[in-house]
C-alpha cells in the first residue's frame, strides 16, 4: 500500500503529473470571479467564503479523473485488482494521494486568495480550518465518483455532474463555517457537521468505490 502511495505521489510530481496545477486553477478562479462580477470590495467580501469554497471544490474536481482513469487506460487497474492488496485499501490510498497533491496545497494557499477577495480578517483561521477538515471529504467523495465513471472515455464532465451534487453538504457547511467565522459568529455546529461528513466519507466510501471499480472492470 505504501508502494502505491509512493508511486502515485511520484507520478503526480513527474513531468505532466499535474502537481501544483490545482493550486494554479484555484488562483485562476479567484481572479476570474471578480473579473466577471466586478471589482467592488464590498460585494466581493460578501461572496468571498462561498467563492473560495466553490473554487477549492472545482480545483479538486478537475483533478479527479486522474485518480483511476489513467490506471484503467493502461491496464494497471486490472492488475491492481488481482494484486494481493485489497482494492478498498488501494482506493483509500489513492484518495489520500489525491488529497496530498491537491487538497493540502489548496488549503495552505487559500488564505492568500482570501486577500484577493477581501475576506474579512477574522475569517482566515476558519477558512484554513474548514478547508483542512473538508478537503479530505472532497477527495474521498471524488474518488467514488471517479470509480463510477472510470470506464467512460474522457468523462470529465460526467464526473463533475455526478460528484458536484455529492459535494453539496460539504460545500454548504464549509462555506458556512467561513461565513460565520468572518462575521465573528459561532461556528461550532457547521464545523462539527463538516467533521462528521469527512469522517463518514473516509470510512465508508472506499468500500463503495471499490465495488464500483470491480463492476467497471468486469
Amino acid at each position: 500500500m505504501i508502494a502505491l502511495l509512493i508511486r502515485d505521489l511520484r507520478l503526480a510530481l513527474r513531468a505532466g503529473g499535474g502537481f501544483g496545477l490545482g493550486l494554479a486553477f484555484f488562483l485562476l478562479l479567484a481572479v476570474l470571479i471578480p473579473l466577471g462580477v466586478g471589482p467592488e470590495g464590498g460585494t466581493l467580501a460578501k461572496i468571498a467564503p462561498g467563492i473560495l469554497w466553490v473554487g477549492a471544490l472545482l480545483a479538486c474536481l478537475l483533478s479527479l479523473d486522474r485518480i483511476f482513469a489513467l490506471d484503467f487506460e493502461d491496464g494497471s487497474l486490472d492488475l491492481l485488482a488481482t494484486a494481493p492488496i485489497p482494492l478498498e485499501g488501494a482506493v483509500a490510498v489513492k484518495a489520500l494521494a489525491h488529497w496530498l497533491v491537491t487538497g493540502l496545497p489548496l488549503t495552505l494557499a487559500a488564505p492568500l486568495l482570501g486577500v484577493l477577495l477581501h475576506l474579512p480578517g477574522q475569517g482566515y483561521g476558519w477558512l484554513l480550518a474548514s478547508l483542512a477538515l473538508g478537503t479530505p471529504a472532497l477527495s474521498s467523495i471524488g474518488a467514488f465518483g471517479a470509480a463510477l465513471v472510470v470506464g467512460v472515455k474522457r468523462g470529465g464532465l460526467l464526473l463533475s455532474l455526478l460528484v458536484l451534487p455529492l459535494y453539496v453538504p460539504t460545500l454548504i457547511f464549509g462555506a458556512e463555517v467561513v461565513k460565520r467565522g468572518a462575521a465573528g459568529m459561532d461556528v461550532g455546529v457547521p464545523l462539527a457537521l463538516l467533521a462528521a461528513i469527512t469522517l463518514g466519507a473516509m470510512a465508508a466510501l472506499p468500500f463503495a468505490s471499490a465495488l464500483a471499480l470491480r463492476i467497471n472492470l468486469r
Partner: protein
Amino acid sequence: MSLWEYANPKKFSETAARVLPVVAPLAGLCLAVGLIWGFFFTPEDYKQGATVKIIFLHVPAAMMAINAWIMMLVASLVWIVRRHHVSALAARAAAPVGMVFTLIALATGAFWGQPMWGTWWEWDPRLTSFLILLLFYLGYIALWQAVEDPDTAADLTGVLCVVGSVFAVLSRYAVKFWNQGLHQDSTIMKVGEKDPLDPAYYWPLIVCLIGIVALFVALVLLRTVTEIRLRRLAVIEAREKQE
C-alpha cells in the same frame, strides 16, 4: 560575423562565460548602491512617509516583469522562425525569473497598498493585469514542464507565448475598460512635465533599475547555460545507452 553565431550553443556558452563575470557584479553593485541610497539616504515623503521607499524595489521589479515577457516573446519568435535552440532555452530560462519579478511586484505592491489604500489588494486595472500576467507565466512554465521532449516543448511554448502575448495585451485593455483604478500612472518617463518624480527619488531609482536589468541578464545567462548543459548531458547519456 553574423549575430546568429551566438545561436550555436557552444559559442553562446563561451560568450556567456565571458559576460557573466561582468554583469553579475554590476547587478550586485547597482542594487546594493541603489537600495542603500534609496532606503537610508532619501527624505521621507510628506504624504506617504517611509513607505514610499518600497518604490525602489517595486518599480524595477514591475518593469522587469513585463520586459521579461517581451524578451520571451522575442526569443520565441526567433526560435519559431529560425529554430535556434539557444533562443528557445533562453525563453525557458527567463520564464521563472520573470515570474519571480511579477511576484515581487505584487508582494511589494500589496505591502504598499496596506498603508496607502488601506487594503492589501484592490482590483485596480494595473494590479489586475499583473495578476493576469502571473497566470500567463504560470501557464507557460506548466506547459514547459508537462511536455517531455525538449524540442516539442520549445515549439509548443513558443506558440503559446505568441498567442498569449496577443491575449495579454487584449486583457490589459479589457481590464482597463472594466475598472478605473487607484494606481498611479507612470511618471518615471515624464521628466520635465508637470508633477514629475522628485529628483531625490529619481536617481537612486535609476540605479536600482540598472541593477535589476543587470540582474535579469545575469540570471537568464546563467540559467540558459545551465539548460544547455543539461540538454547536452541528456544527449550524451542517451547516446551511451544506445550503444
